[in-house]
């Protein structure tokens, strides 16, 4: 099978910190339009995997191919520009800027020094910002300073900032941590909506939430893949129950 | 010039470099504790060295006036007093100033620069603008000639010994004592250290003061190779910071190695070039290396 059928093809990926292998010869494929959820106990290497894909950590070996292009040698901003967006575990937004500015800065135009100097917030940019703001439910908060938003709204804003870039692969690290039940429902709906024309990788611990959104689930343990497949199959896998879900 | 003469000059220049090495290392050690361990940019570190140097001068004057017979011995006591005085001032500085500025490293830099200006003016008002030199004990002067045409100054060897002693002491304290354990715990995780009952505030103050105390000893060593003025310390501050960064901020071994490297480069190139060009050459070399390898020589591998 050719790798080009997948949006993301990770093969034999390894990273070690002073001999400790946080990711150990890991192989993973993500389809176009797929929403993949990665679960696993703490320290399984889930966040490290995302770090590797987006270039925050450099791999010791193996390959990461995005749309058939090797990513492991690229700088972070080049990876982003080729279409991978990443949300961090704790909401990472510009607290001192307004919601509008947060989204505007994330608009993928004027990314060079002189491009940024010449950048004008034209009508199409404004329209896009309003569109995204409506999507994440912050349409009436555009002028609010981002730091004043609630925790859940901050999480949404960061997702919105990623949507501004219209990435083909969106990676979310625990997007619903610290959210209320209602917020979780809204987030699940949001993820379903935005997944329609892109692939996503989501790290999550909340099993109900995972059930609701996942197309396929990957269980990681000690830097390796323990099981992979649809949620109900994975849920009944004795190995998974053993190390993660519990009896 | 014959080969052996060349060799002798090379050796003597090397030994001259050892005195500079000692001062740089003592400055660097104190700073490695304050900057490398605590992350505080102490621009007044040079002035703590000056405190040590003036202490030697004061005690030498006192000894000469009141107990001339003790002149050969005062130096040992003076070194300890230099440490204690610099320690005490450091303790107060931490209490009055530094403790408000943790986690704001660039602001610490400005505030301690202010502190250094104030201290310089105090020195100037107290001791005058002219440089002073203590009367060194007889036995420190003169030189040792193990071979024809080879003179090794005794003060250099004494300072060298003192430096080795202090370095060993710092290593032992940091890696073998309770205090060292507390410092290292506080450095790697302040909140956790607090939670398990380490008084991090007290640890900080102690650490800062010890770093300053060591600078005081550096001042004592300094008096054997130069005369002391209000701004003597500030001449060494950049070198001291470079020693620490070049060695890799958190590595004491790196501090030792880089102090040696810098002092020897400076001292040996001084033989071929003018003093100022030797300095330029040394600094440029360090800057270039730091640009290529910003983490310094002995960086710890940190999982980020």
């Amino acid at each position, binding site marked *: 099978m050719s790798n080009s059928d997948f949006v993301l093809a990770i093969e034999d990926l390894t990273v070690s910190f002073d001999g400790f292998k946080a990711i150990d010869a890991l192989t993973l494929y993500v389809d176009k339009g797929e929403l993949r959820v990665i679960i696993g106990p703490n320290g399984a290497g889930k966040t490290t995997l995302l770090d590797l894909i987006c270039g925050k950590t450099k791999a010791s070996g193996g390959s990461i191919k995005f749309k058939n292009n090797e990513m492991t040698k690229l700088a972070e901003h080049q990876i982003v*520009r080729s279409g991978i967006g990443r949300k961090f575990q704790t909401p990472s937004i510009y607290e001192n*800027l307004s919601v509008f500015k947060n989204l505007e800065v994330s608009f993928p135009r004027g*990314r060079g020094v002189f491009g940024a100097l010449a950048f004008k917030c034209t009508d199409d940019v404004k329209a896009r910002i309003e569109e995204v703001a409506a999507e994440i439910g912050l349409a009436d908060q555009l002028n609010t300073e981002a730091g004043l938003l609630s925790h859940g709204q901050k999480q949404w804003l960061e997702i919105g900032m990623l949507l501004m870039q219209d990435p083909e692969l969106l990676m979310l690290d625990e997007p619903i941590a610290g959210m209320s039940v209602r917020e979780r429902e809204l987030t699940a709906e949001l993820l379903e909506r935005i997944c329609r024309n892109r692939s996503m990788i989501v790290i999550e611990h909340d099993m109900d939430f995972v059930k609701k959104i996942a197309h396929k689930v990957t269980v990681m343990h000690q830097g390796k893949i323990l099981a992979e497949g649809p949620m109900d199959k994975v849920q009944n896998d004795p190995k998974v129950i053993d190390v993660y879900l519990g009896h | 010039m014959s080969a052996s003469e060349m060799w002798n000059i090379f050796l003597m220049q090397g030994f001259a470099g050892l005195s500079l090495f000692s001062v740089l290392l003592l400055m660097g050690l104190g700073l490695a504790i304050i900057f490398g361990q605590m992350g505080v940019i102490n621009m007044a570190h040079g002035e703590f060295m000056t405190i040590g140097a003036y202490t030697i001068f004061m005690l030498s004057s006192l000894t000469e006036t009141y107990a001339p017979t003790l002149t050969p011995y005062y130096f040992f006591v003076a070194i300890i007093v230099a440490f204690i005085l610099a320690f005490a001032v450091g303790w107060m500085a931490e209490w009055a100033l530094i403790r408000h500025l943790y986690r704001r490293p*660039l602001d610490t830099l400005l505030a301690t620069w202010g502190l250094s200006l104030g201290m310089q003016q105090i020195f100037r008002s107290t001791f005058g603008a002219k440089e002073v030199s203590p009367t060194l004990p007889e036995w420190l002067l003169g030189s040792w000639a193990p071979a024809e045409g080879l003179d090794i100054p005794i003060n250099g060897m004494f300072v060298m010994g003192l430096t080795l002693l202090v370095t060993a002491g710092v290593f032992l304290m940091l890696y073998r004592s309770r205090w060292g354990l507390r410092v290292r715990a506080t450095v790697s995780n302040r909140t956790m250290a607090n939670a398990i009952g380490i008084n991090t505030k007290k640890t900080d103050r102690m650490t800062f003061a010890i770093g300053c105390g060591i600078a005081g000893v550096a001042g004592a060593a300094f008096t054997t190779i130069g005369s002391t003025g209000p701004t003597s310390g500030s001449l060494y501050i*950049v070198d001291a910071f470079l020693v620490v*960064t070049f060695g890799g901020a958190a590595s004491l071994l790196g501090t030792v190695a880089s102090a040696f490297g810098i002092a020897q480069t400076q001292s040996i190139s001084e033989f071929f070039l003018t003093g100022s060009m030797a300095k330029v050459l040394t600094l440029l070399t360090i800057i270039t290396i730091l640009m290529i390898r*910003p983490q310094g020589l002995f960086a710890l591998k940190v999982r980020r």
Partner: protein
Amino acid sequence: MDKLKKWLGTSDMAGIVVLALVVFVVLPGTVDIFRLNLVGKYLTYAFVAVGLVMLWGYGGILSLGQGVFFGLGGYCMAMFLKLEASDPISTKIQSTPGIPDFMDWNQITQLPIWWEPFRSLPFAILALLLVPTILAFIVGFAMFKRRVGGVYFAIITQAVALVLSVLIIGQQGYTGGVNGITDLKTMLGWDIRTDSAKYILYFANAVLLFGAIFACRAVQRSKLGTLLLAMRDKEDRVRFSGYDVANFKVFVFCLAAMLCGLGGAMFALQVGFMSPSFVGIVPSIEMVIFAAVGGRMSLVGAVYGTLLVNFGKTYFSETFPQLWLFLMAALFIGVVLAFPNGIAGLYESYVKPWLLKSKAPRDTGAPTAQVTPEATPATPPRTSAAPARALDSAPSGKQPDGVGPAVA
């Protein structure tokens, strides 16, 4: 009156207009040419302070080597002026006429090759802008691409300042050594030492300074300005939004360096000499305090800060030389501990709320321009001014550095 006060309170142009009045009208109208020349000298330092607002306040990058760029700009200008002052006729008593006097004193018999191009004014102008910028580019590129920042950057720039000052002092024959390049007389035949020349240079300098302020203001209001603030607080988020963070840092460092070079050149023109005493570590850190006193986020504040510190320095070091260093020490410590936002911060928290508040009782002749901090309630600026400014991306005082609301 009320309208004026409201405008003063809300528009960020107001600060610039008031400063322009002070610089172009009040000072030239009230002080003699000797003092005005002094003010002109201080205003050349203001270029450095304005650059530091961009670099340090907005970019979060503290350079302790801005004197290097100021010095390079100044030396480029001084070299041109010195060559013009060293024509063979006026230097005929030298053993080698036609070369600068200090070269002659150092037994140099021929003009060094790298001095030659400085006979041309266009070259000198280009050099005074580009030499600092290129050096900043090299240092910045090497450091920022390797993600060296913060304290390490400060230490390296400080070392660069030390290197350059030692080099200039050491290479007497080529640089004039510790005395610097002195006795600058004419520029293309125009005597820069006369009173009329000093007036013209003062105004030229002021115009350039306002040009610099407007340029920086434009950068602040562009997306690049927003990105600088964003980078200062969440560098990784900017990087993972597809920006090459290092490029922006290099840009702002180069911008600040170029401004320093311009300031240095205007210094050489107005004061008539250039010396290494503006290059080393001490002057470089002193320049940081100008920006800090004015308010590290405020371009206009930086100019006031520069003027205030330098007036203070001149006054005290003449009258109470002993006191001056203590005062300077207090400034450094105070501005960090008590007033992290400097003069601009005080203005934001005391004057501005008062300006905005008193438009309510419209009937009474509200107190005129006499602004007394005591008369104003100590309302935090955010409550009154925040909604109007939310889009303007003013950073709040919440972060650890305590960087406060911006005034342009």
